[in-house]
């Protein structure tokens, strides 16, 4: 009986020794790192910087937890594996959000450029009808210069858009729209005076 008990203790002891050698979750660590890197490649740090910082923070925390487990005599990576999987999922969401945000901004740039185009067409039409001198051109050269500047800068916006600088393109497009709108207001005012005069 005594021998059997001691044998049991010996077996449990050996089992514990083997249990302390649980495998390091290398695949999960690599997957989490790769997922965060993929989020960075999707420019999450630019388009959803808050979410990306939180993600980076989560990854750092879980990697530290993995190391903490690795430092122990009896290792159990079950929780850490779950956290690593969750981090990978979070990274995928953050990357998707970045792509969505970027797409939204792209659409905003396209829409703003469309609005600029409409305003520019209207501005050109009004400029053509705006008060002329006796025979020559009207004193509308300043406005013509504005329109030329806007057209040049629209090309710059398109270049930025093509080179993936969506934030820069959007800001420039917004300021161009403001300028085109102010010209439109100015010309509408002049045209209403002309119409009033014709009546």
């Amino acid at each position: 009986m005594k021998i059997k008990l001691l044998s049991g203790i010996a077996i449990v002891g050996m089992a514990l020794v083997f249990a302390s050698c649980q495998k390091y979750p290398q695949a999960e660590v690599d997957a989490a790192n790769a997922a965060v890197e993929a989020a960075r490649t999707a420019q999450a740090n630019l388009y959803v910087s808050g979410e990306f910082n939180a993600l980076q923070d989560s990854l750092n925390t879980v990697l530290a937890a993995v190391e903490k487990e690795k430092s122990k005599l009896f290792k159990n990576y079950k929780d850490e594996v779950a956290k690593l999987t969750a981090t990978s999922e979070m990274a995928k969401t953050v990357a998707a959000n970045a792509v969505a945000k970027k797409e939204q901004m792209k659409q905003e740039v396209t829409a703003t450029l469309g609005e600029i185009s409409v305003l520019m067409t209207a501005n050109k039409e009004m400029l053509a009808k705006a008060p002329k001198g006796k025979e020559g051109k009207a004193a509308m050269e300043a406005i013509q210069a504005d329109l030329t500047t806007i057209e040049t800068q629209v090309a710059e916006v398109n270049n930025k858009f093509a080179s993936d600088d969506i934030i820069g393109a959007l800001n420039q497009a917004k300021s161009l729209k403001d300028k085109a709108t102010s010209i439109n207001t100015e010309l509408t005012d002049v045209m209403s005076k002309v119409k009033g005069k014709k009546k």
Partner: protein
Amino acid sequence: MARKLKKKVKVILITFLATLPLCVFGIFILATPESPEDELGKARMAIADARKTIEKDFIPPSLIEAESLYDSAMLCWKKENEKFILSRDYSKSRTFAIRSEQQALISPKIASQNTSDFVNSLERDLEAVKRDTAQIEQLYSRLPLPTIINKKYSRGIILLREAELNLEQKNFKECRVKLGLAKFDLSEVARYTRTLLDDYFSKLPMWKRWYDQAIRESAQNQSYALVVDKFASKCYVFLSGKLKTTYDVELGKNWIGDKRYSGDKATPEGKYKVTKKKDGSQTRYSKALLLNYPNDEDKAQFQKEIRNKTLPRYARIGNLIEIHGGGGRGANWTDGCVAFADRDMESLYRMIPVGCPVTILGSLQPLFEVIKNPKP
């Protein structure tokens, strides 16, 4: 006896085997070095907090160093974990983690100082450029400027708006770049405009003399006198030296400066008289008052410019300068004439006789007054 001994040895052996792992575990548990988990946790939190509070454009070198130290601490920890459990030494990792936390903790303070200094100066500069731009805006819209200056102005305004948008989005460095470019363009416009105006307003004392003379003569002769203030785009009608009424006028496209030659689209400055009243088929406008431009002074000045070769030999002196209708367009558009709104022209036409003196001058206000209150 031998059997009893054998059994005793067996018991001792099994007991030894049973207690050996426990002893080994005991030794391992007691001798395993404590991991740098706490220090790294604190460093990580300090870095995360700093990242949250610091604007992305103002991350100080201390935070970059904190992150680098954290990475080093993690690396050391990993390296030590690869070793046999009893030979691990986390002191290096711990030291890196502590230094990382220290650097991360001082970062927000450094960044805050840098950020507030930078943002304050940025906001100050932006306000200054906006103020200067607003000041020249009213003047600018009325001045005949070369196309290159017009382009610089519109580009500057667009860049200024971009700078504002970047400031709203806390893209401070991009804001600084855009503001710098806007400032460059707009200050060139301001410089050009200022030079143009300084030059223009250098004749103010002479204009004041003309104005005083016109009123004096109107009072002496008990007659009408017209004074056209080009900068204010106004025509003042005096009767017997007293202001009777004021009209808005529109001028030549290049109204600033005196008329020099035919086709320069400038409105002349000088003392003239109405030589003819035109209506019906005599004029393409409803009514017109023909002036005696060029007068003797204009002719002398033109000849002088030809002699001095400041005008080419083929240049011709202008003529047919009138006060006529067709105005009220909100722009300076004539070839050099003074345009009134048709309704105003009708009433002026009825009032003004042939021979009425017409003084066309640059401005009645000094430049600083005009800049202070650009909209007449």
